[in-house]
Every structure is written in C-alpha cells, then in structure tokens.
C-alpha cells in the first residue's frame, strides 16, 4: 500500500482519537490488577477491605547494603513453596474412566526404567490416542522394574507382568503374553521401540504372529483426516518409505515428543486369561563375562573415570578391573599422559552413555559435564564438596580418592570371596 502525503493528517487524527478511547480501558485494567497485586504481595487489609502491601517492602538488603529483589523465590521460603505447588499442579490431569480402545506400548525398560526412546514412543501413542475418543495408552512391562514416573510419562494403564523368566531372554513367553493381550483387548495399535534385541525383536515376532506387515524404523507419522500414514527408514537408512500406518509399529527414537504437560493415571490392570506355560525352545544360559577394556567408551555401561585428583594410577586400574568397569578419564589426566587419548570423556573426547558413571578426582568442568549428559547415575569422589561434579552427582563422597578406592577394592573382593564360599 502506498501512503500519499495528504493522508497523513488524517492518520494522526485517528491516533488522537485512539488515545482518548484507550483511557477507559486503562482504567478498567487497573481495576482488575488491584486485587491481583494484593494477592501477590499477600499484604494487609486496607480500610476499604482490600489487601494492600507497600511495594517498598519487597526484597532484602544484600551484603553491600544494597537492596536486592530476587524474583526466583530462592531467598524467600514462603514464595518458593508456593511456586513448587504451582509447578506440580501445572500438569493437567488426563484421566480416562472407561477406555473403549487401547493403544499398547511395549517398553524396553533398559535397567528397569523407561528409556528415552520408551518415553518418545509413549508420546507417539498419545498422538494416536488423541484421534479417537476414550482411547487409553497401556504400557506393558515384563519383569521387575524401578520406574516411578509412569504417570508423568503418559501411562494411562499399566499392565505389569511379573515372573522370574522375564529376567533373561524369553521371547517365546513374552510373545505368548502379547498374544493373550491381543485376544483380550484387541488394541488399535501396538507400538514397540525399534531397538536391537528389545522391542525390535519382540515387535517383529508379534507382527509375524498377527500377520501384519509392520512399519519398521518409523520416525514420523502423518495423522491426516484422509488417513494415517507414516515415514520409515528403508534400504539400510538410505531411503525413506512413506506408507499407510499399520497396526504394528516399530519406531525409532525421537519419533515424537515425550509427554511433558499432562499427568496420567498409571492405573494397574490385570489380564483375565493368562497364557498357558509352554516349553521354551530358546534357553538363556546367562551373561558371558566380557573384558570391559575391550568395550568402546561410547558403549560402555559402567565407567570408572579418573581425573587430576588421582594420586595412584596403578590402584585406579586395579579398581576398574575388580569392579569390571570400563576406564575413562578427564582431559587433564590424558594430557598428563596417564591415560590414552581414546579414553577421554567430554566435549573434545567421547560422549558417553553409561548407566553408571563414577568420576574420581574430576572437578566437573563444563566440557567434561557435556560428555556425561546422558548418563543415568553419577557417583563422584572428590575432596572438594563445592565442585560442580558434586552438584551433578547422584551420590557424592567427599574424601580422598586413594583411600576410598582402596576401601572399595577391599569390600568388593570380600563380597566376591563370600559369594564363592556360599556357592
């Protein structure tokens, strides 16, 4: 649009009128704001019966005699607790009284907890559930678990199937249970994480059993009105395949956003008819000891990592051997020549994914902490209680590394001895 010069006076005229009009609005807003302000500052009753608080009374006097206002609520106990309550209740409760349809999610539960991929897949299940009324997302968990955040992760119903057999590789038994669930619930969809031996194996077994041509390596769903379709990785991840969405889905990590703003019931349910016991054709003979030193750092499950606070490197190696841990190191330990370069953890080293990361004499520089972002449990041994590694750690032990590691070696050897005598 072009603006000619003679239009300008008219424009400014408009502006003036606008201002006049806005005055009553402002006035109105003040009326709404007043009680809000009163509430916020939790002040005293004024003669008019409205709570008022002197705005000058907020904050506190800092060490230099300057008034400081901390809006994070960290300084004032009362405010902080109110914020906590707000944070908890900020998750909307999502409940389904009488589900008519089900979407089954079979989680990997690596280490007894929902993995990041499991949570993504629960998010995907809710995308599908939202398309049909009264649809509940049901999670199937085999064997023992340690998970406490089912409700936060989007589990409407939980089917927990217990049994010692699930500790090992028991695909036949698991499949029999899934088939029993299929018979009883007739779920709309089955969703598995497409991961190595967990959901990747079980999902394919179920797909073949149900005679469904499963979508594998799925990373995107398109839920249009005309029909649901999905995009999967094909040809060894060099191509994308777009196809109609089948009933059995094996999805990759990050296929959907995990649930973050609703709270779910996680109500336990039981199956009415359990499958019959059967003779397994595959027998699990247990884990085989592998040399932890041969495991690559990025893959290792349990890492013992040493830094500048290690005094006795021979004792460190001995500890790693006894614990059966893969060795890692901070950059300083590598630069000083105590550890090879391929063992360096951190931004310029390896990004590790260990379930348990034990940092001994490592201060927790940001470059190092970046490398351990995806570790589950961090144990830290350090002489300095104020260092950043202690803040990151789930278990921090303040003391000398040499002494504590020696005690660990002794105790573990004792426990192994005991176990051998019993056996």
């Amino acid at each position: 649009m072009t603006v000619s010069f003679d239009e300008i006076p008219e424009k400014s005229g408009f502006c003036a009128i606008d201002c006049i009009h806005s005055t009553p609005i402002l006035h109105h807003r003040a009326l709404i704001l007043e009680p809000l302000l009163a509430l916020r500052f939790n002040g005293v009753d004024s003669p008019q019966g409205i709570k008022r608080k002197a705005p000058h009374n907020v904050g506190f006097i800092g060490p230099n005699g300057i008034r400081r206002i901390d809006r994070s609520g960290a300084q004032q106990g009362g405010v902080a607790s109110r914020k906590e309550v707000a944070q908890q209740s900020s998750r909307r409760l999502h409940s389904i009284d009488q589900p008519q349809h089900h979407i089954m999610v079979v989680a990997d539960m690596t280490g007894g907890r929902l993995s990041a991929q499991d949570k993504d897949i629960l998010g995907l299940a809710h995308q599908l559930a939202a398309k049909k009324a009264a649809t509940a997302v049901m999670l199937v968990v085999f064997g023992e678990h340690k998970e406490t955040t089912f409700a936060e992760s989007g589990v409407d119903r939980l089917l927990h199937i217990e049994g010692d057999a699930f500790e090992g590789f028991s695909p036949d038994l698991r499949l029999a249970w899934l088939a029993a669930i299929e018979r009883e619930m007739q779920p709309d969809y089955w969703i598995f994480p497409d991961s190595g031996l967990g959901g990747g194996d079980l999902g394919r077994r179920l797909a073949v059993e149900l005679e469904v041509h499963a979508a594998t390596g799925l990373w995107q769903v398109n839920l249009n009105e005309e029909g649901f379709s999905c995009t999967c990785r094909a040809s060894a991840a060099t191509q994308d395949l777009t196809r109609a969405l089948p009933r059995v889905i094996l999805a990759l990590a990050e296929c959907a956003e995990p649930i973050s703003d609703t709270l779910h019931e996680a109500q336990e349910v039981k199956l009415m008819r359990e499958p019959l016991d059967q003779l397994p054709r595959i027998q699990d003979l247990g884990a085989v000891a592998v040399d932890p030193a041969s495991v690559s750092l990025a893959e290792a499950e349990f890492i013992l990592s040493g830094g500048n606070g290690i005094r006795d490197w021979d004792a460190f190696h001995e500890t790693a051997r006894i614990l059966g841990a893969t060795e890692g190191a901070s950059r300083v330990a590598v630069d000083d020549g105590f550890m090879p370069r391929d063992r360096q953890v951190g931004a310029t080293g390896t990004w590790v994914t260990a379930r348990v990361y034990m940092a001994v004499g490592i201060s927790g520089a940001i470059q190092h902490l970046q490398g351990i972002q995806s570790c589950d449990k961090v144990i830290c041994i350090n002489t300095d209680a104020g260092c950043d590694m202690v803040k990151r750690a789930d278990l921090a032990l303040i003391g000398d590394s040499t002494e504590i590691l020696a005690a660990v070696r002794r105790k573990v050897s004792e426990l192994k001895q005991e176990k051998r005598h019993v056996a």
Partner: protein
Amino acid sequence: MSLNQPIRVAVLLSVGQHPVTARPRRADQDARALELALQLGNVEITPLHVGLMNEQNEAALRSYLGMGIRQIRLIEPKAISLQESPDILFSLEQGVRDSGANIVLCGSRAETGESSGLVPYLLAKKLGWPIVSGLVSIEKIEQGSATLLQALPRGQRRKLKVSLPAVLTVDPAAATARQSAFGPAQRGSIKTHSPSTSPNLSDADLQKSSASDSVLWQFQPAKKRPKRLKIIKATSARDRFKAAAAKADASGGKVLQGVSADDAANEIIKLLLEEGVLNLDSRL
C-alpha cells in the same frame, strides 16, 4: 548331532548396495553370516539367493563365491518385488526345505528395498522353527541343539541354547567377512533353479500380507531428520535465561561428607548393586 547326520546350513545371501556409491555389492551382514558358517568347519553349506540373474547381481553374488564357496543356488522368483512379499518368501522356504538344512543363517536386514528385517521372522514362521537374532558366534552344535553367543547392547554378550532346526540372524558385531578373492569368484558357479512347485498363492494369502498395498508405497532418498530442540518450559525470563545458559545446578543428589572410607565404599557398592552393574560372580 551324530556323525551320520551331517549338519546342513543354508545361508541366505542377498545383493547389497554400497552406502555411498549405491553400486550392488555383497551385503555386509549376509557376508558375515557366510563367514560364521565357513568358520563352523565341518558342515555342509548351501548358499541361497532368490532373485534375478543379471549382470549386476552376478557381480555381487560372485564376491560371495570369492569367499571360498563353490556354488550358489539361485531361485528365480516370478516377479521382482520387495523381499517381504509372499512370492519371495515362498521361494526361500522351498530353497531351505530342498537343501535339507537344519540351520538357516542370514543377516538381520537387507540393504535394499524395505530392509524391514522381517524376512527372517516370516521365514521362521513359515518353517515353524524358532528364531534367534543378533548372533555373534556359534559355540557348538550338539544333538538337536546349538549353543550361541548373542550380542547385547553396550558390548555385552549372552549365551543361549536353541533347539534345532532354527533360523539365526547375525549381528553387525559378528566377525567381519573375509576378503573376496578374484580367482575363486570367477571359478565358482551360480546354479539357477526354478521353484520346485510354482507358488500357488491364493488371493486371501496376498490380501493378508499387506505387502499387496505396497504399490502405494513411496520411496525417496532419506531426508535428514530434524534435530530435536530443547524445549524450555519456563514462565519467567529469568528461568529461560538460566535454562539457556545452564550450568550444573545441585541435582538433589546425596552428598556424604566426613564419613569413613569404609562407609563411603559401602554406599558406592550399594548403588552399584542396585543398578546391577557390579557382578560379584566374576573371578577377577
């Protein structure tokens, strides 16, 4: 298995695709499966391929021959289609049955087509055999069963015993295949068989496997997946800034100060046992 009953292994070989040049080649995982079979020593190996005989396929198949096998049995399907189609599966089943194999070895997924990894499972279902995936080695084969080593994530291994006959798929962590030698590759032969009985698939069969709607499937070069953004749910500017410039905040972990080294060690061991990473059975 007793001496008079030889162990027969059928190895399923597919034509792979080089990830960069997209040229046909021996499929990496299938080559590993063949390597595993060759290392078993005293077994009868039947290498099997279902597909068309043309120049490109022949070059790829010859590189399997170059690993030291004399012959590949090739079964020509009626039409070229995805590996998961009933047609190809029928030929595979026939091939395995004709070879009298009691072990089928193959890669866990193809390098072309859908590469869904469903074929071994479908084949096992058709044969009525158990399937074990993610194999790294076969330790021993005895009377009616095999002891296997399976690759777990994080470099771990598990020992399994499976009753024979069985379908076994190898893990990418299995031993790399030996190089293909030119001479044997040229000397070896590719013997074409037509299916002993023509696939007599009913329409219902085809309908059941939704591969029939695969005509509507669209393949295109893989798109780069969007990188997930860190979602920050903060209500105030201060929180948003803190989240962006995140430095380790006290995570509410347990801090033990002034305890004896023994107590500290006990705490550590307790956590390691809880997480199941400490194995007290190991001899070290």
